[in-house]
């Protein structure tokens, strides 16, 4: 079995460790006895800081569960998860909520925005909730980067799907979280709009030094990442650095074939 653990080394982001989040022997199981289903089976993983990590795998492989656990949305059955040096497994809801609010950003596949709030209000929402003032310069930079300056006053239903996802990206970036989790962020978009959003994610990693973890089943989307982790049956079975769409596709075909013959 391949482990996704890398040797910790001093990172490029000012003294902090190079690992933004790590999972140690994480097990997530549903039910018990006969009906026990193991979604994550003793997973060890390190998410490198300042890099773009994609998690791939067939349906039911546990990739979304892994992301939810890493992000503090879901609880684990056993094992530990650290965000930077903070262990988040075992935290109470209140602490977890604060952690998500202050240190984590989210981009979901769909329904990322509150329909009653305008684009800019949606972008600043996590900071509003926290009662923090957004950093005006940073906000402007984020908004410019995702190219939404003209549409800030619009309500979500006045924006296209691609624009809505860009607002979601901007929201995730605006609070300067330590790590952004994307759950198939381009799953609902056509290829052009998808490319746009992925481009922004890439840019934010390259230019803003953001750490991003994205779950996807699209090889093209995965090719934007620095590193791809493959999950199957709740385990990390492979990984690939500097992927290309073709390479990812080939690897997936491999798994498929192996899955069928075994």
């Amino acid at each position, binding site marked *: 079995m391949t482990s996704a653990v890398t040797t910790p080394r001093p990172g490029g982001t000012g003294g902090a460790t190079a690992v933004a989040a790590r999972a140690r022997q994480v097990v997530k199981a549903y039910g018990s006895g006969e009906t026990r289903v193991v979604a994550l089976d003793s997973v060890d993983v390190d998410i490198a800081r300042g890099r773009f990590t994609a998690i791939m795998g067939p349906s039911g492989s546990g990739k979304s569960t892994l992301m939810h656990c890493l992000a503090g949305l879901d609880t684990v059955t056993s094992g530990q998860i650290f965000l930077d040096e903070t262990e988040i497994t075992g935290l109470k809801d209140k602490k977890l909520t604060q952690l998500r609010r202050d240190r984590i950003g989210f981009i979901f596949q769909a329904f990322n925005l509150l*329909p*009653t709030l305008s684009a800019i209000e949606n972008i600043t929402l996590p900071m509003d909730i926290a*009662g923090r003032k957004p950093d005006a310069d940073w906000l402007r930079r984020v908004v410019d980067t995702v190219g939404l300056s003209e549409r800030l006053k619009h309500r979500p239903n006045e924006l296209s799907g691609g624009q809505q996802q860009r607002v979601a990206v901007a929201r995730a970036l605006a609070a300067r979280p330590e790590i952004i989790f994307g759950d198939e962020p381009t799953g609902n978009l056509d290829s052009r709009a998808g490319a746009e959003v992925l481009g922004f994610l890439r840019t934010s990693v390259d230019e803003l030094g953001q750490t991003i973890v994205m779950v996807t089943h699209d090889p093209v989307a995965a090719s934007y990442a620095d590193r791809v982790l493959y999950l199957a049956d709740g385990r990390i079975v492979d990984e690939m650095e500097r992927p290309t769409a073709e390479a990812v596709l080939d690897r997936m075909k491999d798994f498929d074939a192996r899955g069928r013959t075994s």
Partner: protein
Amino acid sequence: MSVLKTSLRNFLAHKGRMALSAVAVLLSVAFVSGTLVFMDTMNATFEKLFATTASSVTVSPEGATDDETPQTGRPETLPAALLDEVAKAEGARNVQGAVTSLSVTVVDAKNKNVGPTGGAPTIAVNWTPNELRSVEITSGHEPRGPTDVVVDAATAEKHGLKLGDELRTISVTGDFTAKISGIAEFKVTNPGATLVYFETATAQRELLGKEGLFTQITADAAPGVSDDALKANIAAALGDGHKLQTAAEAADAGREELAGFLDVMKYAMLGFAGIALLVGIFLIVNTFSMLVAQRTREIGLMRAIGSSRRQVNRSVLVEALLLGLVGSAAGVAAGVGLAVGLMKLMSAVGMELSTGDLTVKWTTPVVGVVLGVVVTVLAAYVPARRAGKISPMAALRDAGTPADGRAGRVRGGIGLALTAAGAAALVAAARAEEAAPGSAWLGLGVVLSLLGFVVVGPLLAGVVVRALGVVVLRVFGPVGRMAERNALRNPRRTGATGAALMIGLALVACLSVVGSSMVASATEELDRSVGADFIVRSGTGQPIVPQAQAALEKAPGIDHVTEYRWLDATVTDPRGRKTEEGLAATDATYMRDLRRETTAGRLADAYGPDAMSVGSDYATEHGVKVGDVLTVAFKGGKPAKLRVAAITADQGNVDNGAMYTDITTAARYLPADRVPHSLLLLAGAKDGQETQAYQALKDALAPYPQYKVSNQADYKKDLQDQVGQLLNIVYGLLALAIVVAVLGVVNTLALSVVERTREIGLMRAIGLSRRQLRRMIRLESVVIALFGALLGLGLGMGWGTAAQKLLALEGLGVLDVPWPTILTVFVASAFVGLFAALVPAFRAGRMNVLNAIASE
């Protein structure tokens, strides 16, 4: 069949929401059926009472009234000799002479009134074997001598009376004291009266003034003789001049007497049932609208696979039918419980009603269920139609949140037109010159403006919620802003939810304005017209007995005591037209105690010998001028010719339209025992001795607890308390409407929470804490409640003001808006909102973030 199955499934799938709506149906049906059960039980109880206790035939003096307390303080009587004549009638058995007086007050050794407090009378009677039909002596013995008295067990228990205790009986013939010789327990329902029994001669002497008199003579029919036949026989034996009643007639008369009181209760309760029903309709309409909105996709799918509009429509109506059936069935059951509760309440105020007599006619459940079902189905009709209009395309669309239900312009136009028409009608009512058309305008104005507000509600919701947002919500930052936006999302829903609350609060506001204006107007009038320092009244409508008056007159510091006696008379005007009038026979000092304006003549002259005054309305109507002579035939006395010496201006409430004459004038035309006693006394203190005089009067009245003396300040306070108590009862009943409205708010919020599951999940994922989430939902609830309150209070104050202007014709001259009450209600509404949000907010907080995100 499949329609029914789908409906049933849906119904069961939404148990919680349906339960809330069912409660609304339940409450209104419970009120209606509770009223019916209570009325039927009362009737049955009294039928039984009269059937068991009344003699076959009762002979009373002509002119005797059944239970009114005569102002002379003496019941009409029959001579004892009549007993023999009745006994001679064919078929008469067990002929008994009865002495009954309701003009008594009985006090214990500590001068405490042992009579009932709930308005029922104290009845003093002579002991005859007939009494054993209704009571049995449970301890001691029947009254045997002049110092024996038997008291009913309920009274004895309530006042801690034992055998041997002394009771003082106060009547116009004087006070007399007797010792309790026995305690009598009722075998039948005692409608709340206190009963004391004396030996016959004592009763005659002390209650009627001399022996040898009875107030009734009763006879039973011999076997084979019908009551009617006996009545005819006795009538033949006695000749004219007597009132004869069979047991059945007595029962009817008794019931009729009760009917007046019961009718008031019945209509009041049905009125509140109606309000609860009206508010319930909003709740039902809202529930079904929300259910339909929530199921849009599902219904679209059904349409896509071939359901017709009618089938969809019908499936919603069948759900409503189920709801109506469940709600009203439970309502009927709750109604019986309510009736039992009412009976217990009646017992608490002294009217003993046995739950053993509980009468549920078959019509009661039928009426309840039909009402509940019809109302529910009607209320669900609009949402059902909307469901039918859902296009099959809805199945294909992304569900997300339902589109913002924008309030249409047409709707706004209609609403504004209705509101304007209502406002115009209210203005017309306020300006009306006569009461009858004015009331019609008022009614129309109330209905139209209510409808208008309901229709225009969604539009107003936008405006009002935004305004409230600026004032209230901004304090809460982004959470407040989101609450505001959420409340604005579906103005129709917010409007309907708020409207339900609006109705109850509008009535509260209207009544409190009217009530407060009543107090203010009366106070203002008292200040303007009343010069007396003190007023002495009885709480029970009993005239003031001479011994009490004598005690008052001896009180130190008193300048004068003014008698006020009310005389019934037939007055013939100079043109020969006869009318039944009441004359106020008073001392001349009355002019000082109550300042009256005159339009002609001097009021002082009306207190001269054989003089009187009339009101200006009478003078105009009958063409009477100062100097004209009227023929006044006093009831029970000789006709007098009295000269009109003054005409008083008819204005205000106090003594409006009264005719005045001096007591000495009236006394000359009436036998001494026919002169009524004072209804009330007014008194003035010597200058500077007001405080001492007040205390002295109170002390003087200590042995006569049936009377109460008040100075002007206390009198005003009493007035205020009375109005306040009345209003409290009404508020209590309106609370029902508010409870239903709160259920509506709960319902709306619960559904909003479900609808926004994904949104809530998203917000929780990006860091909204449970507390913030709960606060957001609570704020939304508060805003909806305040919206309803603002509309309701505004509307109600409008109604109240129009009503006051209209009632100004009846003397309600001062408009007084009770701002503290209004403000309290407004603030309380905010708490109502908080309360309504408790469960929905709790449930939203408990939502699992992941499920919320994953859910559709």
